[in-house]
């Protein structure tokens, strides 16, 4: 596990910055809720009459006046986008950075098989994403308790589980991409995460594009669906898991045969 430790050490600053930023933004959103609650009756009505814009963010089906409704939209966007960007950035650079920074010669001339390198790097990405989610989950629960609201455990658990799955799926896809890249990985990672986010917005706006929900992991993270149904969409989540695993498999197949320059 030498390489896992090394990767965790190398990525610790970015981990702390992303976790602190997402955690702080989530806490701020939650602390704003008591002040906004009283003004929300009219706002919810307004959102539900804003057509495609509200549909895009699922705001037509949620009540902003309740903590779960507010949390699913506001906090969901912070955790959804922030977490997706972090997971994508971590994974997309983890293999390619060795060639980009020209450290691949150093690493790959040690007696460590490429399969082990891929596995340990994958584990380090999973640990970072998991640790970030545990910390952010704790921050959320403590913040909700601090504002004196009852904690909607089921909804919070399901929302956080969905976003955790989304991040793992994105990490898997970007990990696969990373094995093919030699440079410029950051833009690719951010681009993939942003594209999948916007695909979900498009899918929400028109029924013709609803199939896109099966492609983007943001489909099964839709707060409105999770809060209303009280469960994750298993079909969409299964497609997501399969896409993530396909990315990981592609990384193994490509990187074990790749010429290192």
């Amino acid at each position: 596990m030498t390489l896992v430790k090394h990767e965790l050490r190398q990525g610790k600053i970015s981990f702390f910055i992303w976790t602190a930023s997402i955690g702080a933004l989530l806490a701020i959103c939650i602390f704003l809720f008591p002040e906004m609650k009283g003004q929300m009756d009219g706002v919810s009505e307004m959102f539900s009459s804003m057509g495609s814009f509200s549909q895009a963010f699922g705001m037509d089906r949620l009540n902003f006046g309740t903590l779960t409704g507010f949390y699913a939209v506001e906090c969901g966007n912070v955790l959804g986008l922030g977490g997706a960007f972090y997971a994508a950035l971590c994974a997309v650079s983890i293999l390619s950075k060795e060639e980009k920074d020209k450290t691949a010669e150093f690493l790959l001339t040690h007696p460590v098989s490429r399969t082990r390198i891929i596995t340990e790097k994958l584990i380090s990405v999973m640990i970072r994403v998991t640790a970030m989610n545990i910390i952010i989950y704790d921050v959320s629960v403590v913040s909700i308790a601090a504002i004196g609201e009852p904690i909607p455990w089921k909804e919070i658990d399901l929302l956080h589980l969905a976003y955790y799955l989304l991040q793992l799926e994105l990490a898997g896809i970007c990990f696969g991409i990373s094995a093919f890249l030699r440079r410029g990985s950051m833009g690719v990672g951010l681009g993939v995460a942003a594209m999948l986010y916007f695909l979900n917005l498009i899918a929400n706006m028109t029924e013709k594009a609803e199939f896109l929900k099966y492609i983007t992991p943001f489909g099964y993270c839709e707060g409105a669906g999770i809060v209303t149904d009280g469960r994750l969409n298993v079909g969409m989540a299964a497609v997501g898991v399969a896409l993530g695993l396909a990315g990981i498999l592609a990384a193994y197949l490509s990187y074990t045969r790749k010429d290192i320059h």
Partner: protein
Amino acid sequence: MELIQTMELTKYYGKTRGIEGLELRVEQGEFFGFIGPNGAGKSTTIRLLLGLIRPTSGSVRVFGKELQKEKNDILRETGYLPSEAWLYQGMRVRDLLKLSAGLRKKDCAREAKRLCERLQLDPSRKVEDLSFGNRKKAAIVCALQHQPKLLVLDEPTSGLDPLMQREFFRILRERNREGAAILLSSHVLSEIEHNCTRAAILRDGRMIACSSVEVFSKTSAKRVTVHGSVDLNGLEGVRDRKNEEASVSFLYSGDMDSLLCTLSRGQVKDLTITEPDLEEVFLHYYEKEEEGA
């Protein structure tokens, strides 16, 4: 026993030739030189030997083991020093050395300390603060600290000051005496000449000569320097002619009698005939190849 053995080793990058049909043999305990200009295929060969790239065809055996199948066993006993030492930023040298030892599952602390002292490398410094030469020293310690049986060195002295170069070669000779084989790829022919027992010359991805350094130095060509005036027209076997104000110097590979006759017709104040240095031999081989092409 052959430590490195390549059989018909060929590497193409798409349509571009890397090396072609390379048959390289390095014996146990040998200090082997690898000579060739940029693009000759030296680095490609080294990358193939270390498994960084896969051959288009042919095979590599190191320590008698098939590289593709037993790469980890081979790398465990191999130390590699790249021409440009790129190391992980944000780490201290001591952590980098620990990482390298950890990846080898070996405690190399004592040897690392000894090497750092000999190379005057401060292990508490951060990698990004190191000069090019100090980065190279850190890479040298990484390559040597696990006391490998085979050392692969690609242009090892670039960036090192002359004193450090001397110390570095002293360490290499010690390791060689202790039984380690060394494959030294270099542009600096004097490094090969002074340290290696055998050498191979590469050109356009092919090995054009492989012999003991002594044999290379004793090719039939001689460096002749004549002070005075002499007419060399008509004398066959004269190459690399350098005319000075009162002297002429040339490589001569023709008939000795003809040379002496020619010289006797001129006015010779002083004459030296020496073995050519390795650089001249290198050029001799290249020119010979060009003539043949």
